[in-house]
């Protein structure tokens, strides 16, 4: 059957069972938009800025197990999308971005709204394509979805020139994909897995360090079973929160720059470290030389060989799908007659308990006069029963949300961990709410971050998305302010947010409900009222203590045990 390129694009999306496409029309994608108009299987969500489209597709992917899809026009449409694409790339989020391109006849002539999309996105996509023949659209889109969701997932861009979307070709959606230069790791090496089991059984001070790979691989069940089977201390990265239940006693909470004292000390003092779907990045292990001073054995399990031995020396690498490897590791351990030495492990746990006491867990001094941001998150946790989908922006509020909201389930915590993109939270919440219409979705944000994609409040109105925006408004770019206080002699260069809008009026202007909360005693009633409004977006402007800092803190370039606790200051 002969169809136009644009018809083929839409048919491909239908074949991939895409429910929502997040996008923004423009000249180069008009034929595709025309075809979207003529059908109702694939629903289009009109954002107000292309960055919002990509973040929304990202939130959609993270909160489900699906591939997010965004559609943008050429030139500025594509460049606006780049931040979103890079965000997804850094966190390995499966996504297909379709961009329009100027007609093939004028490519390279600096045509109106022309930009080298493939060139600009090359360093921040898993792969990208420029389709020059309508006959190649179907196979390319099939490949794009396949690449996006298999192996280490990531965003894939398909750039389609306008004339290609208007020319006709035979449409047949391929049932299979073969890319001769691409293979995906499946099961891990069985010998290595048996060796890992032995190392864990004989470990005196073991720690499990689990990252976003556990979430992406849907391996939370296997991880939880493994940790509980051996009684291992387990810490999760910012990306891995919810991979192991945060309220469980074996959980040490988050590690890293703003991780718990016990998690960081356990990382530094363990003798066997099982790293799962995590990549030892600078915000997690701090100073790499300091980290390497301790002669611990490292078992590293990851689907991407290039993540292994990138920053730290690894004693036992296991390349494979985290879920499959953990399942096999569990089988080996369950059938083993050997059990971990309970006495030795008890000693290790006693040491960890000591750190828990010293670190005061996650402590802050509450106040009757001024709202403490941590208190807002604690109340948010209580009122949502710990079961909401929480998206966040980037900064202090993100760290407090990660610390104080105890995620027990995967895909509930959605934040830009790798790229650290301010403006991510609200559009990500839109994607999450659309694919989880019955879930409670809240966006924890700051007055700085929210303004980076505030225009999406309009999208939320159009699509009736009852997101709860929890803005911790301290009138500062809080994390910048904190670093300036600690490391730049209290010189608060450009971190004060002057001339803030009246967020209540702003929310109302967009057709939503706005609330301003100034007193600690009003925090809980306000949250209760807001979350009781099931059908409305409520923007809560919490006026919080502008001097509050995030603790613990491992300063940049320092080792995990060189931590600043709140009482040190």
């Amino acid at each position, binding site marked *: 059957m002969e169809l136009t390129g644009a018809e083929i694009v839409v048919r491909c999306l239908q074949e991939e069972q895409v429910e929502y496409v997040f996008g923004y029309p423009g000249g180069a994608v008009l034929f595709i938009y025309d075809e979207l108009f003529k059908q109702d299987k694939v629903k289009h969500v009109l954002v107000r800025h292309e960055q919002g489209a990509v973040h929304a597709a990202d939130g959609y992917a993270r909160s489900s197990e699906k591939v997010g899809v965004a559609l943008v026009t050429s030139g500025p449409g594509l460049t606006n999308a780049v931040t979103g694409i890079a965000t997804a790339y850094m966190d390995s989020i499966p996504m297909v971005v379709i961009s329009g391109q100027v007609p093939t006849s004028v490519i390279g002539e600096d045509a109106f709204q022309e930009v080298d999309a*493939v060139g600009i996105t*090359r*360093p921040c996509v898993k792969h990208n394509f*420029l389709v020059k023949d309508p006959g190649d659209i179907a196979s390319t889109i099939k490949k794009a979805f396949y690449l996006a969701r298999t192996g280490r997932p990531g965003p894939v861009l398909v750039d389609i020139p306008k004339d290609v979307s208007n020319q006709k070709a035979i449409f047949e959606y391929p049932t299979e994909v073969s890319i*001769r*230069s691409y293979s995906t790791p499946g099961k891990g090496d069985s010998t290595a897995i048996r060796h890992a089991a032995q190392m864990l059984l004989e470990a005196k001070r073991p720690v499990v360090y689990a990252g976003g790979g556990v979430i992406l691989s849907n391996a939370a069940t296997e991880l939880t079973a493994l940790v509980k089977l051996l009684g291992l201390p387990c810490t999760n990265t910012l990306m891995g929160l919810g991979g192991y239940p945060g309220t469980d006693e074996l959980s040490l909470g988050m590690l890293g720059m703003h991780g718990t004292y016990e998690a960081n000390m356990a990382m530094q003092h363990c003798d066997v470290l099982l790293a799962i779907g995590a990549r030892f990045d600078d915000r997690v292990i701090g100073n790499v030389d300091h980290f390497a001073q301790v002669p611990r054995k490292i078992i590293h399990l990851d689907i*991407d*060989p*290039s993540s292994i031995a990138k920053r730290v020396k690894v004693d036992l690498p296991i390349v494979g799908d985290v879920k499959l490897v953990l399942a096999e590791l569990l089988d080996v351990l369950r059938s083993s007659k050997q059990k971990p030495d309970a006495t030795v492990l008890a000693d290790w746990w006693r040491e960890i308990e000591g750190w828990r006491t010293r670190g005061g867990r996650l402590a802050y001094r509450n106040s009757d006069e001024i709202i403490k941001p941590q208190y807002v998150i604690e109340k948010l946790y209580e009122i949502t029963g710990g079961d909401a989908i929480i998206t966040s922006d980037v900064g202090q509020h993100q760290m407090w949300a990660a610390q104080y909201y105890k995620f027990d389930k995967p895909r509930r915590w959605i934040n830009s961990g790798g790229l650290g993109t301010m403006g991510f939270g609200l559009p990500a919440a839109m994607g999450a709410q659309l694919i989880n219409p019955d879930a409670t979705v809240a966006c924890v944000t700051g007055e700085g971050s929210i303004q980076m994609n505030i225009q999406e409040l309009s999208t939320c109105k159009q699509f009736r998305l009852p997101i709860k925006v929890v803005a911790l408004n301290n009138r500062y770019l809080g994390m910048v302010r904190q670093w300036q206080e600690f490391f730049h002699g209290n010189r608060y260069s450009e971190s004060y947010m002057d001339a803030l809008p009246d967020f209540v009026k702003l929310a109302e202007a967009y057709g939503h409900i706005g609330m301003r909360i100034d007193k600690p005693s009003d925090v809980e009633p306000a949250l209760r009222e807001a979350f009781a409004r099931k059908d409305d977006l409520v923007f809560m402007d919490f006026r919080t203590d502008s001097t509050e800092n995030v603790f613990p803190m491992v300063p940049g370039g320092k080792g995990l045990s060189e931590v600043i606790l709140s009482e040190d200051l």
Partner: protein
Amino acid sequence: MRHIISLLMVNEAGALSRVAGLFSARGYNIESLTVAPTEDLTLSRMTIVTSGSDAVIEQINKQLNKLVDVIAVLDLSEGDHLERELMLIKLKAEGEDREELKRMADIFRGRIIDVSGTSYTVELTGSRAKLDNFIAAISSDLILETVRTGASGIGRGERILKI
């Protein structure tokens, strides 16, 4: 340490820039890079000469393998291999220099492939060191122009990179 890495990749627009972009984005060193299609025109064979610590070279290999367009990667310097580089060098050849330069080209088994009243162009193939030695043996004021391809490498004997 110097490494010579061979790779097979799909012969498609953009594949070269993915490799070059990877090296620049991650701060890896490229001493030379050569690429051309193989006997199977859907494939290109690339030889990259690079240097770095063992950890860096391991990352380079892994990162290259991760590129969707790259089919196979072989670090030739891990085993027996041959490498050759081609140089075209234009020399100022006047008066008594003409005879001397002709002799020098012969000693290095170069071929004079173009002659004018005032110049010779010599084609020379060999290891990087041989080409360097030839340049060192010629008085620098006689060298008008040099063009070098960078090394192409292949494994010895049964060491074959093919799919």
